[in-house]
């Protein structure tokens, strides 16, 4: 249907206004707030989202403090952007989402003030909202306790801390269903809970697709499912253990319902629930410091019950030679913290004062099962030493409540006098005991200093190419000088032989082409054959030629043909028929084509 003139004017104007309105809406800055719930329980966090639209560079959000509410910003922010094209006009919308958590600290009605932002000198604000807070009546629905095994533990001892979460078993009488332990655990709100020092243990369970084990236990005649999360405990200070911020939150069921899910399977689901949260109580966990009374001077923090084994290697040494002691400290109590266990300090043990030089540095140790192994070097300073004295290791035995000392067995040792000459300052034969010793006393251990840049620069790094470049030229020259003259001579000889054959062949051709006598033809053929087998031409007879051709490896037919031709030429001298020159050429061509042992050069 054709448009009227009025329509043809109004439609474009309306379209333009609509596009303008859309673009203005797209570019309008705004800030809004979304609240997960306007009712909350004390200590239950309420999630709040602040959304800022179309304000790229803003300051804030800001919010004033509210007595009774703890408002904290959650880490991170979410950014969204979208681009719209209307009638060729591109508009972009930018949205920033920032999360907050409001934790009521007491019951009451609160007004949460506006969140404000500053954008290009203007202040934008959300609307304030109300929050009704009541006390969560957890009652006996859930309780949490932290227990320690052993319950009394000493600093330096190793134990186990267990977070026990007891959830009252839920039974829906209407449906006749009692939730099992897996279903109850699924209602624990992982995200809203904080796990303190038990976080890593729980994380490990999750990574293995497991959950804390739950067992049914009667507490005050009520049936509970008790979930236990354990972690090793190695206290470093006396007093109550610092378990961190632990708060367990869950949706405790109030009513279940039965219905079909999207796959039309009949399922039981949660119809109504209430959030409950608890902080765990420390159940008589005592971390004690080992008593100061009766503490041996050599005690260095070991707590537990230990066995000490020492091995020495080598045991036949010269004065000053290093002897490696391997000290194995085995925990027989099963409760000692081995990671922090330190080696006995030999330098502080009087038995090592005389006859041994001992490093004052603590030996490094390696944990192996329930034992820790230390290695330490000592050096005998006198050949009078015959044993490595017992090593003492003091520890606090928590089961007996007193300090004890373990001693190793003395180890036999043979020390030979040192071969190092003792320099006497006075030059006298006998050392003067009053004079200071001039014998250097090496200190075991320690590192030699780094290489300097100059030292490294002097260091030549050899690559295979360097070797080739350095060695090949003189080697090649040497080979050339040694073998060159002989090679040249050989080449020269080869050239002369070839030349001689060519010349003999030419002479033979000339005699065959001219009406030369049979004698001339015989002579030139023999000269050719002599050149061919590198023989002296003077006195070279038919017999010589046949012998040398055979020796040179020419074919038997060729040799026989040669002998027949030579005989015919010989007879022709005395009036016989001369052989056909073509037959002689054919023979010579055949001999030229043949490569033999002696006649390689043609």
């Amino acid at each position, binding site marked *: 249907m054709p448009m009227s003139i009025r329509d043809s004017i109004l439609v474009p104007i309306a379209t333009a206004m609509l596009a303008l309105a859309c673009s203005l809406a797209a570019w309008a800055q705004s800030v809004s707030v979304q609240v997960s719930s306007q009712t909350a329980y004390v200590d239950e966090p309420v999630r709040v989202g602040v959304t800022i639209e179309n304000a790229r560079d803003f300051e804030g959000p800001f919010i004033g403090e509210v007595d009774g509410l703890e408002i904290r910003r959650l880490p991170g922010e979410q950014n969204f952007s979208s681009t719209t094209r209307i009638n060729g006009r591109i508009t972009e919308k930018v949205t920033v989402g920032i999360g907050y958590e409001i934790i009521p600290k007491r019951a009451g009605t609160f007004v949460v003030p506006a969140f404000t932002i500053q954008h290009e000198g203007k202040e934008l604000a959300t609307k304030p909202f109300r929050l009704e807070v009541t006390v969560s009546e957890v009652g006996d629905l859930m309780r949490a306790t932290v227990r320690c095994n052993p319950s009394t533990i000493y600093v330096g001892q190793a134990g186990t801390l267990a977070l026990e979460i007891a959830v009252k078993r839920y039974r829906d009488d209407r449906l006749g269903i009692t939730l099992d332990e897996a279903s109850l655990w699924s209602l624990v709100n992982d995200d809203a809970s904080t796990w303190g020092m038990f976080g890593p243990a729980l994380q490990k369970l999750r990574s293995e697709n497991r959950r804390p084990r739950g067992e049914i236990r009667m507490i005050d005649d009520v049936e509970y499912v008790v979930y236990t999360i354990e972690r090793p405990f190695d206290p470093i200070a006396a007093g109550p253990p610092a378990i961190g911020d632990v708060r367990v939150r869950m949706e405790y069921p109030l009513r279940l319902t039965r219905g079909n899910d999207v796959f039309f399977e009949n399922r039981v689901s949660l119809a109504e629930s209430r959030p409950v949260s608890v902080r765990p109580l420390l159940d008589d966990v005592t971390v004690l410091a080992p008593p100061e009374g009766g503490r041996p001077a050599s005690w260095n923090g070991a707590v537990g019950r230990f066995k000490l084994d020492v091995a020495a290697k080598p045991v036949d040494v010269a004065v000053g030679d*290093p002897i*490696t002691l*391997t000290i194995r400290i085995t925990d027989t109590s099963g409760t000692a913290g081995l990671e922090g266990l330190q080696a006995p300090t030999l330098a502080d043990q009087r038995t090592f004062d005389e006859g041994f030089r001992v490093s004052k540095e603590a030996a*490094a140790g*390696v944990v*192996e*099962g329930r034992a820790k*192994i230390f*290695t330490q*070097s000592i050096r005998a300073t006198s050949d009078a030493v015959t044993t490595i004295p017992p090593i003492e290791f003091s520890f606090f035995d928590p089961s007996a409540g007193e300090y004890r000392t373990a001693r190793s067995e003395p180890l036999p040792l043979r020390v030979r006098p040192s071969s190092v000459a003792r320099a006497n300052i006075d030059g006298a034969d006998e050392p003067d005991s009053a004079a200071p010793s001039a014998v250097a006393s090496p200190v075991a*251990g*320690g*590192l*030699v*200093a*780094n*290489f300097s*840049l100059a*030292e*490294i*620069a002097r*260091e*030549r*790094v*050899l*690559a*295979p*190419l*360097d*070797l080739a*470049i*350095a*060695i090949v*030229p*003189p*080697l*090649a*020259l*040497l080979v*050339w*000088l*040694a073998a*060159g*003259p002989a090679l*040249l*001579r050989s*080449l*020269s000889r080869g050239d002369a032989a070839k030349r001689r054959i060519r010349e003999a062949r030419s002479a033979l051709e000339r005699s065959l082409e001219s009406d030369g006598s049979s004698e001339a033809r015989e002579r030139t053929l023999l000269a050719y054959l002599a050149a061919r087998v590198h023989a002296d031409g003077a006195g070279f007879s038919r017999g010589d030629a046949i012998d040398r051709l055979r020796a040179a490896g020419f074919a038997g037919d060729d040799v026989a043909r040669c002998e027949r031709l030579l005989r015919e030429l010989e007879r022709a001298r005395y009036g016989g028929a001369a052989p056909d020159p073509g037959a002689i050429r054919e023979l010579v061509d055949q001999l030229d084509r043949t490569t033999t042992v002696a006649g390689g050069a043609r």
Partner: protein
Amino acid sequence: MRRPATTFAVLTALGIAVLAIQFLLPLIAWSGRGKIDAGAFDRAEASYAAGLAMRAERPDDARAKFLESASQFESLLATSDAAGIHFNRANALLEAGRTSEAIAAYLAAERRLPGDASIEANLAEARSRVVRVTDRPEPGILERTQRLWSPIGPATRTIVAALLLWGAALGAALGLRRAVVPLAALGLGLAATCAVDALSAGESTAAVVAREAVLRKGNGEGFEPVLAEPLPAGTECRVIEARPGWIEVRCSAKVIGWLREDAVIQVR
């Protein structure tokens, strides 16, 4: 036609001229290769010195400094493969408590500068910090043979070998046949030692266990362990064979087994 004697004289003269120029190439090559960035070297040294200064009072900070120094020395290896850089890096690693990596770096330095007293002393110190559950593997025949000539560095041997061969060539040119054979034999012998070193340089079989690892009877976690205890970090061994993800090693004459590839540092 040119006489053979003339040809020989001309070729010899030409050869001497060309080869004499080539003789200078090694020196040119050595002087131009492996330049170390002095600034980067000084920074690595400064980090090491700072670590030493704070070692007693602030061990954690000192450790960080030593690791920084080790990293800086490692970056210098991109331009120079000198034993000294490996050695300095090893010192920093050892001070930082990374004993296994330090031993591997000391072994790398020892391969490049055999018989150096500083390297041997610090390698011994590093080894003293490792608990060995097996004997150390015996060196192979090639390694034992190489130790015979290792006190003289390969560069020195190469230069001496070249000089001896030039001397033999001169003797041959002058007709001093009695001198040629011993000079040539000695020169070729020295050159052969260098060739053996150069050819075996890329075929190190030394390795160090990087972290405590179970030595197994086959190349998989399903195989039984060879030893009841895991091999401690820092245990030195020799690589026999490599298969994807696993390496067969010899820890001593009788202890042979497989370790995960990521548990072993191969000495390069």
